């Protein structure tokens, strides 16, 4: 299994080959800040791969800014201004450094933080011989954020999804009846979609998956198995 660092070097190369992007409504919700936390994290990771969607998002934020500046302003008194001015001394300016595009350590920082380490540091659970998975805590009460690891050439038996599913390929790739997906590709599936993904033969595939997990399931064990329960019964 490849490490995050090895996967990292491919990010830049992948930017030119990305063919599967979030739909406009997902990017709009991302730009407006209304996506759930785990979904926003998934879109954010795609943006690290995809210059075109970054451009779209910046335009969608300009739409928000236009609405923002056109609002009817609320009255704000000088008392609040003075309060803020008094706090400035205790609020030293931050110096910001953006990651240059050619960064070698390209496992998206957001993901590294959530994983608190590398892919190999996570505790994986085997689902089938070809598939293992690990759940990553984001604090999102509604959506689960997990990683899937499919062995090279491995297939996930046909299954559908009980809720919507966002998938982002981090390493390697897979194909199903609709197409093939490589690092950076973003796939959004609605509940009725059925597919049987198969990892490319020459490399293990690691994907990030964000799925609906109804709150009524309290046991994490049960929750992360949700998407796969059906495939075992048929």
């Amino acid at each position, binding site marked *: 299994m490849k490490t995050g660092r090895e996967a990292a070097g491919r990010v830049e190369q992948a930017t030119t080959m990305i063919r599967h992007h979030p739909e406009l409504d997902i990017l709009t919700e991302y730009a407006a800040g209304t996506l759930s936390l785990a979904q926003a994290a998934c879109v954010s990771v795609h943006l690290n791969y995809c210059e075109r969607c970054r451009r779209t998002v910046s335009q969608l934020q300009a739409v928000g800014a236009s609405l923002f500046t056109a609002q009817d302003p609320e009255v704000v008194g000088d008392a609040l201004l003075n309060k803020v001015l008094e706090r*400035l001394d205790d609020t030293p300016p931050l110096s910001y450094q953006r990651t240059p595009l050619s960064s070698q350590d390209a496992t998206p920082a957001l993901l590294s933080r959530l994983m608190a380490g590398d892919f190999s540091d996570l505790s994986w659970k085997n689902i089938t011989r070809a598939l293992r998975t690990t759940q990553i805590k984001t604090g999102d009460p509604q959506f689960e954020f997990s990683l899937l690891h499919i062995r090279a050439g491995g297939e996930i038996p046909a299954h559908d999804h009980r809720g919507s599913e966002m998938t982002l390929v981090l390493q390697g790739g897979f194909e199903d009846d609709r197409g093939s997906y490589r690092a950076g590709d973003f796939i959004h599936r609605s509940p009725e979609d059925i597919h049987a993904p198969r990892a490319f033969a020459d490399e293990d595939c690691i994907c990030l998956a964000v799925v609906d997990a109804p709150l009524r399931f309290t046991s994490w064990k049960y929750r992360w198995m949700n998407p796969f329960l059906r495939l075992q019964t048929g």
Partner: protein
Amino acid sequence: MNDSHDDRHQDSHEDNHEGTHEGAAKPRKSPAWSAPTGRRTDEWSECLVLIGEKQDRAAFTRLFRHFAPLIKAFALTGSTLSATHADELVQEVMLKIWQKAKAFNPEKAAASTWVYTIARNCRTDMYRRLQKFDTPLAAEDFSPEQDSEEPFMQLQSRRSAEKIRAMMGDLPADQKQILAKVYMEGRSHAEAAAELDLPLGTVKSRVRLAMQKLQVQFEHSLEAGLSQS
């Protein structure tokens, strides 16, 4: 301050391009844009640069008087935030602006977009705090790590942002209503559909039509046609 302030916001959407707000209050120098580099010379960009470079309090005060009333409106729109929380949000956003002003680059972004993004992030964080989310992440962590460094791309993106502002006023009312729900009230498409008693597909298609009209460029995913409702 508030009287003079309110005057600046009587502009209709048609006039809602960069520089409008200060333009109404005092005579405007030349366009807010100067081709071909397109460097922004509007008052709010200048304020942000002064704050970033010199921690200029006078510039900060000007910026506060302009943006704080908008941030407060943004806090109160369609939300359950109390007036106290709204004031708290104003403070948080303005202090963030003070802290981050160094990162503002007028070559890359309009001041209004930059401020809006900070306000959006702070509001999201406040919602999550109030709902007691247990998360290691702040909303600003979700911004992509890389910006386009290429000057041509930067110019293009500024131009399309300018176009968006100019064309906003021409949107049909039903499309504008949805955008306001989504952006200002912070509703998901599904929530907007429920509140307006519309099918989700209608909400999504109005958003798409609006973005097409505003000439937002986006990638058509290969399977977009298959998975749209």
